[in-house]
C-alpha cells in the first residue's frame, strides 16, 4: 500500500463508496424480488406478479412501504442504542465492498490487506444485532441478541480458519492477487485444491449471515422476530438490507477465494464474478426454503465439534504441504 495518501486515491475511494452504495441498493431490490420468486418456485406458487410485469416492481413497492411506515420506539427502550443499531448494521457493510475485485479494472480499493479488512469490518454486524436486541427492552429481542452473539463469535473461527488456508497457500491477503493466481478453468480454481475449506467457509458463512437453517437470532416460531422484534419501517428495512448486503459480501469473498473470481473459461470479466456470486446466493435461498431450523445447541455443536477441528486439520495439512 502506498504510504502517502494522495487526493486522487481519496477521491477514488469516495467514488467507489458511492458506487458500492448504488450497487448494494439495486442488489437489495433484485435479491428481494429473487428471493420471493425462488420461494414461489420452490413452493409451487407464482410468487409476486401483480406489481409491474411479472411482479418486477414488487421490491420497489416493498421499499416504498417500509420507507412510508412510522418508526416506533418502544416505551423505555434506550433511544440512542435503539436507533444506532440499524445504522451500525448497514453502513459498515458498504466498506466491505471496497476491496472486492469485481474485475481487474473494477476494484474499489485494491488494498493488499483486503481480506483482513473484510474480516475486521464484518465483526460490526454482531455488535449491531446485540445493540438492537439489548436496546429495544424486549425479552424476545434480548434472547435473539444473545443467540446472535454466541453464534457469530463461534462461526467466525472456522470461517477464519478456512480463509487462512487460502492465505497460506497463496501467500497474500490481497484479494486481486488471490484471483490472479487462479487459472481460468474450474479445475484450476482453489476449490479443486481446497474443497474442505470451501465447505467450511460456506457453512460458516450461512452461520455468520444468520441465514436459514441457522437463522436462530430471528427464529420467528420461537422468538417472534428475535433481535428486530421491535423495529418497524426502515429500522427493520436497514436490518433487512444489511442481511442481503452481508450475503453478497460472503458470496463474493467465497467467489474470490475459491471460485476464481472474475476468471472463466472464456471472456474473463466482471460478469463471471457476478454470475458466480448469484449462483451462490441462489443456493443460499434454496437452503432457506428447504430446510427446517436447527436447534441452538446443535448449531454450536456443529461448529465446535466438526467445523473447528476440521478447519484446524485442513490448515495444518495446508501448512505441511506448503512447507514441502
Amino acid at each position, binding site marked *: 500500500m502506498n504510504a502517502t495518501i494522495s487526493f486522487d486515491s481519496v477521491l477514488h475511494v469516495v467514488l467507489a463508496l458511492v458506487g458500492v452504495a448504488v450497487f448494494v441498493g439495486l442488489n437489495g431490490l433484485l435479491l428481494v424480488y429473487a428471493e420471493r420468486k425462488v420461494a414461489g418456485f420452490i413452493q409451487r406458487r407464482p410468487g409476486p406478479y401483480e406489481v409491474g410485469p411479472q411482479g418486477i416492481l414488487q421490491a420497489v413497492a416493498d421499499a416504498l412501504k417500509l420507507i412510508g411506515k412510522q418508526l416506533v420506539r418502544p416505551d423505555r427502550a434506550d433511544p440512542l442504542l435503539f436507533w444506532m443499531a440499524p445504522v451500525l448494521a448497514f453502513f459498515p457493510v458498504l466498506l466491505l465492498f471496497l476491496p472486492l475485485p469485481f474485475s481487474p479494472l473494477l476494484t474499489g480499493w485494491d488494498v493488499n490487506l483486503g481480506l483482513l479488512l473484510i474480516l475486521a469490518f464484518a465483526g460490526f454486524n454482531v455488535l449491531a444485532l446485540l445493540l438492537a436486541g439489548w436496546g429495544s427492552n424486549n425479552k424476545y429481542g434480548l434472547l435473539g441478541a444473545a443467540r446472535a452473539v454466541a453464534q457469530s463469535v463461534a462461526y467466525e473461527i472456522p470461517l477464519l480458519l478456512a480463509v487462512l488456508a487460502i492465505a497460506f497457500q497463496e501467500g497474500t491477503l490481497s484479494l486481486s492477487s488471490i484471483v490472479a493466481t487462479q487459472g481460468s478453468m474450474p479445475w484450476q480454481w482453489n476449490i479443486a485444491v481446497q474443497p474442505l475449506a470451501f465447505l467450511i467457509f460456506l457453512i460458516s458463512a450461512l452461520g455468520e449471515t444468520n441465514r436459514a437453517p441457522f437463522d436462530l437470532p430471528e427464529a420467528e*416460531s420461537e422468538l417472534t422476530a428475535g433481535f428486530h422484534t421491535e423495529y418497524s419501517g426502515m429500522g427493520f428495512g436497514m436490518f433487512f438490507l444489511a442481511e442481503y448486503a452481508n450475503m453478497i459480501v460472503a458470496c463474493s469473498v467465497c467467489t474470490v477465494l475459491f471460485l476464481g473470481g472474475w476468471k472463466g473459461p472464456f471472456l474473463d470479466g466482471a460478469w463471471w464474478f457476478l454470475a458466480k456470486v448469484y449462483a451462490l446466493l441462489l443456493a443460499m435461498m434454496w437452503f432457506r426454503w428447504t430446510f427446517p431450523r436447527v436447534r441452538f445447541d446443535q448449531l454450536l455443536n456443529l461448529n465446535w465439534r466438526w467445523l473447528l477441528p476440521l478447519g484446524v486439520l485442513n490448515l495444518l495439512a495446508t501448512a505441511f504441504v506448503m512447507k514441502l
Partner: protein
Amino acid sequence: MHSADTLRSRPTSCPAASADGGCADDQIAGDGYTCRFERGARPESLILNMGPQHPSTHGVLRVLLELDGEYIVRAEPVLGYLHRMHEKMAEVKNPAQFMPNMGRVDYLHALAWNWAYVGAVEKLAGIEIPERAEYLRVITCELNRISSHLLWWGAYLLDLGAFTPIMYAFDDREMLLDLLQLMTGSRLTYSSFRFGGVYTDASPAFVQGVRQFVPHLRSRLPMYTALVTENIILRRRIEEVGVIPPDMVTRYGASGPVARGSGIAYDVRRAEPYSVYDRFDYEIPTRAEQCSMARYMVRMAEIEQSLRIIEQAIDSLPEGEHMHPKAPKPSFKLPAGESYFAVEGARGKIGVWIASDGGKTPYRVKLRAPGFSNLALFAECARGTLLADAVAILGSLDMVIPEIDR
C-alpha cells in the same frame, strides 16, 4: 378508579404487590394473571410470556415460561382466550339448532364432533341410521381426519422453521376440501350430519373424486417421507424430544396420537367400536419411542390407515337411503335421560354427554375435548427443555385452541 394514569403505572395495579406498596419485580408486573405467577427459587430467571399472540401457539394459547437462559424452569399454559360457551349454548338450543356449533368446536376435525353429538342424541332418542349413511359418515369423517393431519403436518414444520411443506400439504388438502364441499356444502366448519343420517347423498362425482384422491395421496406420501421425514435436521430436532412416558399419558388422560406415540394402542374406533368401523380392515399405528418423532410417525401412519378405510368403505358403499324415513323433525323433543357417545377424533377421544329432562332443550351437555387433556401434560413435559424444544413439543401435541377452550 381506572384513570389513564393508574392503567399506565402497571406496578401499582398489580394486586399481588399491593402489600408492600408496589411491585418490586418489574418482570412479573403485568396483568393480573402474570402477577400470581411467582418467581421460582432462582432469582436470575426470566419470566417470558409466550402468547396469546405468538406464531407457534396456534391461535390464542398463552404459555407463561420461567426461563433460565433458554432452558425452561417452569411452563404454565393459560387458557380461556377463546372460550365461547358451547356447553351453555347447548342448554338453550334444541339439538338441531345446536348442530352448527359442533363444526366450530374443533374446526379441523369438525365431522368427528358432528358425529359425537349426533351419536349421543341418536342413542338417547333411539333414532336409527340407514347403513348407507353410516358408510358416508365413515368416509367423510376419515377424509376430514386426513385433512386435519395434513394441516398439522404443514403447521408443525412451520414451527420447526421449514416454510415449504405447508404449501405442499395445502395443495393436497385443497382437493380434500373440494371433495368435502361436494358432500357437505362447506369447506371447514361442516355440520352435515343429521339425527338419523346425513344431509346429502353421495353424488357420483363425489364417489369418483374419492376414488381418484386415494391413490393420489398415496403417491404423494413417499415424497413427503423422502423430503421431510428423513431430513436429518428434522430428525435431530424432534427425536427424543418431549418424551411422554405411558404413565404420564394415563395420569393426564391424554388420547389420540399422543397416547399412541407412547405405545398405548388406544383408539376409540377399536376400544369402543361404533358405527361400521368393525367391518373394515385397518391397523392402529403405535410407536414405542414416546417422543415427538413418534407422534409425528403415528400421524403419518394414520393418514395411510384412513386411506385404507376410505378405500374399503367406498368400494362396499351400500345402496339405499341417506336419511332414515323415520328420522325426527328438527324440532323434536329429547326424551328424559342421559347418554354418552365417544368417537375418535384427529386429536384423540371426543366425548359428548347429554342429560335431558324431557324439555325442548337438553338439561346439560358436556363436551370432552381431547386437546385439553393433551395440553395439560405440556407443563410437566416441557420442564428442563430448551425454548426451541418447547415449540417442538407444543406442536407435536397438535392443539386446536377453540377445542381446548370450547
